[in-house]
């Protein structure tokens, strides 16, 4: 009895922390429609900041708390909203989620950079460490009592803020109808900003409270958010009392499990499978159940207008691309060192995983956070099935995983949008915790996946595997192109663009979604089955899936090229870290930083690059000019005027920074044209004048120099030629509320309304 009571108190205080986190999640979701996956990471950063102030710099606790919770956290939240989230209005759920994934990756990278794991650092003490009171014969620490107090305070404050203040009323109005609020003179943007600030404070509070219990560790603090998801979903993402109840239940489950799992009556295995991973899986299981008991998502008309655009890929360019990709890999693979070969191999493997998202996320608009899980299942199937890696085994492995993917998707398909994405995350965590850690799958930590046996071809070197994987990517890419051009592809896009129209035209939405999931799982399985080496379950962990999803979306998840770009970027990022050790920390925050910019460019980098060059199509005079320029650079190199590295750098700048700007130069007004021409020419001359072979001595630094030069020269010229002042992004309904109409606006309005002023 005593034990039950003790663990009840422990459970409830854990639950109190979950409740604080979850309420922050609910606040931002309801006011901005963005489900913040990075919410736990915010709390983690706040906990580290507090530790820095309080224990490293010895700032008194009240001041440190005030600074962290009421200055830095709100500032961070408001800044996140202003800089990152506001650009996301009117984009797809996929992009919005990816941006929070990016934020998540960014913050973890930042914490790793600023506070590297260090066992000798000051301990994170509880509030009033060592003090406790006795309640009914049980010692309860002051920290726990404070935790309870905070949860109750949060509940009361939220209630008061939402129902008794003007801002609260505005927040609830935004939840109900954002546009209507705006028409009535409310400022949804300000409301969202306030909500994000409030939510960051809540996350920070929870992070500090939890760090007191569990010390400063990045992972538990970040994964805290999974418990919070479960609680928030129980509250259906809007009901705060239900959210608090869910949090309490989760805290208790965890605590009781801790208390009773060692008892003899507690099952240690089921059907021969060990249940050792179940504790970590409890919140996920609750999340899964909470998701599946949600009512079927209703067909609704009038959803989002998409900003992304994808073109139908042509066969000619696709085949040309596939063939040249393989040719390039064959050509350069002979020159690579062993470690670079392995890194590139990894890049192509990731590209296949990213490719698995193209039909599912890019075409059908269904977000999956579990692409690597299917790769892991593919690796297991390839290793366990008889045949030791012959083609039949490979095909069977892929088919099995595809079927598993389709079946697993079935219960989740009643859900849409964020709920579907979360259920795939739950699936990924469950598989990681309950399947990958079994003796039957990864005995002794890893398994050897046999190399695919192709008749008449012997593949044993890393180079051979690299060529194999690149070829596989090309073939699968062509498969995806074929799908896009087929009846199925049109259906997938129709499903994304308007489920309501698709259904009322006779599409069985469930069947189409299952097909998309199965196809995606099958492609993902190829990545695992082609591993051809020892693999460990960590490689297929849920947290590893997030960067893949992120970079696929950054590259452009609607196109095969985007998947390649994303996968290679992921591989290239680890190359960067190994080539330039001083930039290791930068590489930690790089994927996140890139992802955060998605709001400005939701179609992805590959699409944008292609767009930049599309303007040159048919402009023969410009194309000749570009060719001539390239020839001049080459000729200068051949005449030994330019060094080889300068040739590379100047060439890249010529093609990527100067060439795409040429049509704009020709089209812009004469004054701007002159400035732009001078700017571009100066940039080019400076680039060519530096001998990059001696100026920088590490390849990685030169690569970074190239990126910076292209950005400065290319984007700079673009900025010069942008005509007129930038258009205000404000909705017309808000103009005039914050400031008076300008004369120009009045004139425009009169013109539009055809008012004649005499």
């Amino acid at each position, binding site marked *: 009895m005593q034990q039950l009571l003790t663990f009840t108190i422990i459970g409830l205080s854990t639950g109190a922390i979950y409740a604080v986190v979850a309420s922050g999640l609910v606040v931002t979701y309801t006011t901005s429609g963005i489900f913040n996956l990075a919410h736990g990471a915010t709390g983690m950063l706040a906990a580290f900041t507090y530790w820095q102030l309080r224990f490293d710099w010895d700032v008194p606790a009240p001041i440190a708390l005030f600074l962290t919770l009421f200055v830095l956290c709100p500032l961070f939240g408001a800044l996140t909203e202003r800089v990152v989230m506001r650009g996301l209005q009117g984009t797809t759920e996929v992009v919005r989620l990816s941006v929070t994934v990016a934020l998540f990756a960014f913050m973890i990278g930042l914490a790793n950079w600023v506070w590297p794991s260090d066992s000798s650092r000051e301990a994170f003490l509880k509030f009033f460490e060592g003090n406790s009171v006795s309640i009914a014969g049980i010692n309860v620490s002051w920290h726990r009592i404070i935790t309870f107090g905070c949860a109750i305070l949060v509940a009361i404050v939220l209630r008061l803020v939402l129902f008794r203040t003007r801002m609260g009323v505005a927040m609830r109005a935004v939840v109900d109808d954002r546009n209507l609020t705006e028409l009535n003179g409310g400022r949804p943007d300000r409301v969202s900003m306030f909500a994000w600030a409030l939510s960051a404070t809540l996350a920070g509070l929870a992070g500090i409270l939890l760090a007191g219990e569990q010390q400063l560790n990045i992972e538990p603090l970040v994964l805290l958010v999974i418990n919070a998801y479960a609680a928030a979903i129980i509250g259906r993402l809007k009901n705060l009392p239900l959210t608090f109840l869910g949090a309490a239940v989760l805290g208790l489950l965890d605590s009781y499990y801790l208390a009773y799992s060692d008892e003899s009556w507690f099952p240690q295995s089921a059907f021969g499978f060990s249940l050792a991973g179940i504790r970590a899986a409890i919140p996920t299981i609750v999340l899964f159940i909470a998701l599946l008991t949600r009512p079927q998502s209703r*067909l609704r008309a009038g959803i989002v207008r998409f900003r992304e655009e994808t073109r139908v890929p042509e066969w000619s360019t696709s085949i040309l691309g596939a063939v040249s990709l393989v040719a390039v890999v064959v050509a350069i693979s002979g020159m690579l060192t062993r470690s670079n070969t392995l890194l590139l191999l990894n890049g192509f493997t990731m590209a296949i995983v990213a490719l698995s998202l193209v039909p599912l996320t890019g075409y059908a608009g269904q977000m999956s956070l579990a692409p690597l899980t299917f790769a892991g299942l593919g690796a297991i199937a390839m290793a366990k099935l008889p045949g030791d890696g012959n083609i039949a085994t490979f095909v069977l492995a892929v088919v099995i995983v595809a079927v598993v993917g389709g079946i697993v998707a079935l219960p989740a398909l009643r859900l849409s949008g964020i709920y579907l994405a979360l259920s795939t995350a739950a699936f990924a965590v469950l598989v990681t915790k309950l399947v990958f850690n079994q003796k039957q799958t990864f005995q002794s930590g890893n398994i050897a996946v046999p190399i695919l046996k192709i008749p008449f071809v012997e593949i044993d070197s890393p180079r051979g595997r690299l060529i194999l994987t690149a070829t596989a990517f090309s073939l699968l890419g062509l498969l995806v192109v074929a799908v896009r051009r087929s009846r199925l592809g049109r259906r997938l896009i*129709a499903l994304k*663009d308007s489920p*309501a129209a*698709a259904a*009322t035209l*006779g599409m069985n939405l469930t069947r189409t979604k299952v097909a998309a999931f199965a196809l995606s799982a099958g492609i993902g399985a190829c990545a695992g089955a082609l591993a051809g080496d020892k693999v460990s379950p960590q490689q297929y962990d849920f947290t590893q899936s997030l960067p893949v999803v992120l970079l696929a979306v950054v590259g452009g998840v609607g196109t095969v090229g985007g998947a390649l770009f994303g996968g290679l970027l992921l591989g290239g990022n680890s190359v960067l870290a190994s080539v330039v050790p001083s930039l290791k920390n930068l590489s930690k925050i790089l994927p996140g930083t890139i992802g955060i910019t998605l709001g400005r460019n939701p179609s992805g980098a590959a699409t944008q690059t292609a767009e930049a060059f599309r303007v040159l199509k048919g402009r023969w005079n410009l194309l000749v000019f570009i060719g001539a320029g390239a020839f001049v650079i080459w000729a200068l190199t051949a005449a030994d005027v330019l060094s080889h590295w300068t040739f590379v750098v100047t060439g890249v700048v010529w093609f990527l920074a100067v060439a795409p700007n040429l049509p704009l130069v020709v089209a812009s007004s004469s004054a701007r044209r002159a400035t732009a021409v001078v700017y571009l020419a100066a940039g080019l001359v400076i680039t060519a004048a530096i001998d990059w072979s001696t100026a920088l001595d590490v390849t990685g630094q030169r690569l970074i120099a190239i990126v910076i030069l292209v950005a400065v020269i290319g984007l700079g010229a673009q900025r010069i030629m942008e005509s007129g002042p930038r258009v205000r992004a404000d909705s017309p309904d808000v103009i005039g509320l914050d400031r008076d109409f300008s004369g120009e606006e009045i004139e425009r309005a009169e013109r539009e309304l055809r008012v004649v002023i005499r």
Partner: protein
Amino acid sequence: MSLLYVDRVIVRFGGVTAVDGVNLLARAGEVTGLIGPNGAGKTTLFNVISGMQEPTGGSVSLDSVDITDLPAHKRAQRGMARTFQRLELFGSLSVRDNIKVAAELAALTNVNSIVDEMIERVGIADIADRPAGDLPTGSARLVEIARALATRPKLLLLDEPASGLDEAESDRLGELLRTLAATGLGVLLVEHDMGLVMKVCDVIYVLDLGQIIAHGTPNEIQHDPKVLEAYLGAS
């Protein structure tokens, strides 16, 4: 012969009764109009008929078969197609592919010739290869109609097809609807453009506050005191 039969359909949202015991009948080869002030429940009724909204009570039959419990896609397969008041085109697909998806979903053979036929019939050949997401409202409405027709429906539900059309386009739409009805298609038309409704409809139902307050020929409706009151307020 009744093609569509709506029998005492009720829809409640919480405490609000949006549709309150509506009976409605649409025949093959006729254009049936459904009019009423804003908020009368027209779109809700459309959603019930097309399977996007489960009714609280009552039933819907198509061709004398009860389809109340069928999901939207099965109703479509039985010969029902609709357009939307707020456009629901597949914005990333070209206009042609929008229509093609529909023809393919109806499991028709010679898909391409049907697509061409629809493009010509509705008069959108000049925009056939543009992405549907970029179209102005008027053209987009025509594409939605062509897409719905490409499933070769028996019953076509049109939710305010003339809003956003100019007068000439609206006249053309009226002619198109008459031609379609002449081939045996049943059309149920929700529309605010009274000129169009009075010109093309064989029968008109008037919905107000969730109830049918009158039905009859255009001539009868125009002189019904209850209708005048609903539209103009107490006289």
